[in-house]
């Protein structure tokens, strides 16, 4: 049984439109013109238990809106969504008790008190049996190594430390579905890695389903085998991360180390980089084998590697393509 089932989910907002100037302001008092914005446009997908799925897309693509609809914060305009067998917008207590939504940069713990006190409050809110609560709490504290942080008032913690205690606080009720919205935003590299490995570990230990949105490719690469690429409210790609390149990247990069880097390589492909003894060429995917053979035959090659384009570039290209097509 799928944990998350989404069918034709759509969300439109009516955005008031107004031109600048005093006259337009006066007119707008009587007649409000609104523009319909489709934040999410008939998307469909299914996520199974224990999957970690990354939602990729530029700002305003509809990622956060989708997550909000799946957690019950927003009503869909049309379409269906079921999470753990519940309709999220009904906001049933049993449903809310099994999910958690972590928003990067938002504080849900009591500011003036040590995190432990806030954890106690969460225990009462989620009605967690005392023994289970204590056991899970201690496990999570140990996992993220925040033992000395949980006794200090939250306001005294740094941004990264605060994120760690917030995440623990949001998992105390052992939710089966985690919605993580930009969880590593604003954190330094070490902290980001820490959070990533923690989420992976939590997923492994408790078989939780994780839906993650992020700007950082590294988050997605580290955690998600499956990505859903959203742009302008539509799903452009839904599948394994590794296949993303196959689907969208129309080229590969060939890096050659040579004795003599001078000379004209433009016949082989686009020269993207050129160093003393190193040349990087970009060639269409289908040409890779042929160009490689030619290079080896015609040049004094010391070393040759064929690389997939970095995922970031692929994504960027996808969106650029999308933009062009609109």
């Amino acid at each position, binding site marked *: 049984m799928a944990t998350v089932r989404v069918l034709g989910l759509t969300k439109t*907002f009516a955005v008031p439109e107004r031109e600048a100037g005093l006259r337009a302001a006066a007119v707008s008092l009587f007649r409000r013109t609104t523009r319909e914005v489709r934040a999410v446009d008939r998307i469909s997908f299914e996520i199974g238990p224990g999957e970690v799925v990354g939602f990729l897309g530029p700002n305003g693509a509809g990622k956060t809106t989708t997550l909000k609809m799946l957690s*019950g*914060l927003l009503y869909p305009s049309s379409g269906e969504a079921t999470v753990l067998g519940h309709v999220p917008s009904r906001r049933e207590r049993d449903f809310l008790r099994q999910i958690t939504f972590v*928003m990067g940069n938002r504080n*849900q713990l009591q500011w003036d008190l040590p995190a432990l*006190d806030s954890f106690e*409050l969460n225990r009462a809110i989620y009605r967690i049996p005392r023994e289970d609560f204590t056991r899970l709490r201690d496990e999570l504290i140990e996992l993220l190594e925040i033992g000395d942080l949980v006794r200090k008032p939250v306001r005294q913690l740094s941004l990264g430390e605060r994120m760690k205690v917030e995440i623990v606080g949001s998992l105390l009720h052992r939710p089966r579905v985690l919605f993580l919205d930009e969880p590593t935003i604003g954190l330094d590299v070490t902290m980001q890695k820490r959070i990533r490995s923690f989420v992976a570990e939590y997923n492994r230990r408790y078989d939780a389903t994780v839906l993650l949105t992020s700007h950082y490719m590294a988050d997605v690469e580290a955690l998600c085998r499956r990505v859903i690429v959203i742009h302008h409210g539509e799903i452009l790609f839904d599948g394994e991360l590794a296949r993303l390149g196959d689907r969208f990247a129309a080229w590969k990069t060939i890096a050659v180390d040579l004795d003599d880097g001078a000379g004209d390589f433009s016949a082989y492909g686009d020269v993207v980089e050129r160093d003393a003894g190193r040349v990087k060429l970009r060639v269409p995917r289908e040409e890779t084998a042929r160009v490689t053979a030619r290079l080896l035959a015609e040049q004094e090659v010391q070393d040759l590697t064929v690389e997939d384009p970095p995922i970031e570039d692929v994504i960027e290209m996808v969106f650029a393509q999308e933009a062009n097509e609109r």
Partner: protein
Amino acid sequence: MNAEAGRVRSLLDFYVTRARTQIQVQFQYRAATYFWLIGMLAEPIVYLVVWTTIAEQQGGSVQGITTGEFAAYYIVWTLVRNMNIVFTPYGWEWRIREGQLSAALLRPLHPLHDDIAGFAGWKPVVIALWLPIAAALWVAFDPVLDPTLLEVGVFSLAIWGAYLIRTMFLSTLGMITFWTTRVSAIFELAIAVELLLSGRLVPLPLMPDWAEDVAAVLPFQWSFYFPIVALTGDLSRGELLGGLAAQLLWILALTGLTLLVWRFAIRRYSAVGN
């Protein structure tokens, strides 16, 4: 049946935990609370002085209320005023703007519980800090106060009734924020009416008759005048218990109203986002 009992038990557990959390937080802000308490005293002291001045000019009492009784009225006022402080519409505005509301909506508990429990937790700290102030006022203004046991009992209940009435009333007003950002206008008007018709600025019997009539159909006097006069006045047994009943009726009515408005408010919030 068992599930229901379990739910009630965990709700109780939540209230205790939440109130305890608030006490801990509030305790850290004792200094701020003290300054605010002292500043807040000016209003009742001013009116106390004004009315006792008039009373003395008239030979000892105004409309039958003696200077000592005025003193008692306004000193008890300071406690009741503190019990009255609840989450305001401005708080709702802030909470929506800061995204706190989304966080609250994700929890399996109605946000109203959190507000009631949180503010209720605040009260014991305030009461504790208030006691020495009350003692000082007692010495300074020499009130006449001689309550019976029944009056003390009714008073102890009435102050919490006052708290709930005002919570529900302002909560309903606060939810108007979901539809307009100009909630402050409505709030200011409501507060003005409350100031005049609740017994806050002027003890109700001193207001003109028509004002007393209007006040009778509004909830304001039940969150202010009634608790004060339960302790300081000479209400009969019937009036005391009847007052508690009236409070209960208002609590039920306003709670129903709040929950109803909440349902519409959430629908609006979830349709529009923030």
